């Protein structure tokens, strides 16, 4: 993180304004405007697309260099968390076991 408190505050306030404007928009228009069907369909893909775009580099490019090997603790721990989330659908369990796995792999694997 490398910005001033003022810049950071401005970013957060802007995030808040954008979020509030979206929530208020159609409430204020009193239902006179409908969401276009294409946008309704597209919104379903926002979470998988945005979150995967963050996850992939976090796992496969830790610290800025691509590492697809089995010596990459973040890749192994993340894959394990994905399997747990897929099998159990338990979000907290996946986070906790994923974190424990990361610590284990960090100790066990040579840097």
């Amino acid at each position, binding site marked *: *993180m*490398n*910005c001033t*408190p003022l810049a*950071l*505050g401005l*970013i*957060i*306030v*802007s*995030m*808040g304004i954008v*979020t*509030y404007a*979206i*929530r*208020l928009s*159609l*409430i*204020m*228009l*009193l*239902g006179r405007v*409908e969401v276009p069907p*294409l946008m309704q*369909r*597209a*919104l*379903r*893909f*926002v*979470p*998988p*697309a*945005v979150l*995967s*775009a*963050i996850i*992939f*580099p*976090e*796992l496969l*490019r830790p610290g800025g260099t*691509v590492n697809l090997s089995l010596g990459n603790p*973040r890749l192994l*721990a993340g894959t394990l*968390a*994905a399997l*747990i*989330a*897929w099998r159990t*659908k*338990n*979000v*907290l369990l*996946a*986070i906790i076991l*994923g*974190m424990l796995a990361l610590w284990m792999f*960090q100790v066990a694997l040579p840097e």
Partner: protein
Amino acid sequence: MPSRRCEFIAGVKAELPILLGVSPFGMIYGVLALSAGLPATMAFMMSFVVYAGSAQFVGAQLIGTGAPGIVIVFTTFIVNLRHILYSASVAPHLKRLTARWRCLLAYLLTDEAYAVAITRFNKEPAPPPGLPSTEWYFLGAGLAQWSVWQASTAVGIALGTQIPPGWALDFTIALTFIALVVPALTDRSSVAAAVSAGIVAMLTASWPYKLGLIVASISGIVVGLLVEAPRVSIGRQQ
């Protein structure tokens, strides 16, 4: 008069089971916002000003990697765009309220409060015109959610200041996203959206200003729509 209080309390009660699931996330947000490098006051301010779980997680992560403000704000816009569906959905039920009421309820319109409020709105019979009630249910659910989110965030921030950086807790962001995305990959098109966004994100990871994130997100959404499209047209022919 008593109907207001009844509705308010019923709204709080309906929200309670959801809050059990929400509070750990508030704490995780607090911890990871600090490990991403946010000062405690800014991390708490985000809960108050933005008040949107997933956008706060993504925002903290982007601030931590030094992404420029415009990219962070635009990503917040994409992540929170789904709230427009909630806004459209509750709008007809809030028509008769004053602007002040509508402004307040819009602030409280999170995923969780929406889920609870809309079930009340859709339940018949609707209250007679002029008699205030269901908005108090929404208010009860919304304020319960809001209080627990602020409190659990504060607990997380307090914990976060105690945790040494060597614990690599920044990884909880990636883990949280994995745990949220994977169970939602229930069909071909959502898998296609996730995988294509991930691949484009890898290819564009060295782009400046985190622009790759936006390109990757939009690519994923477009691919999801394209993969889904044929099935929709088959459905229409039948």
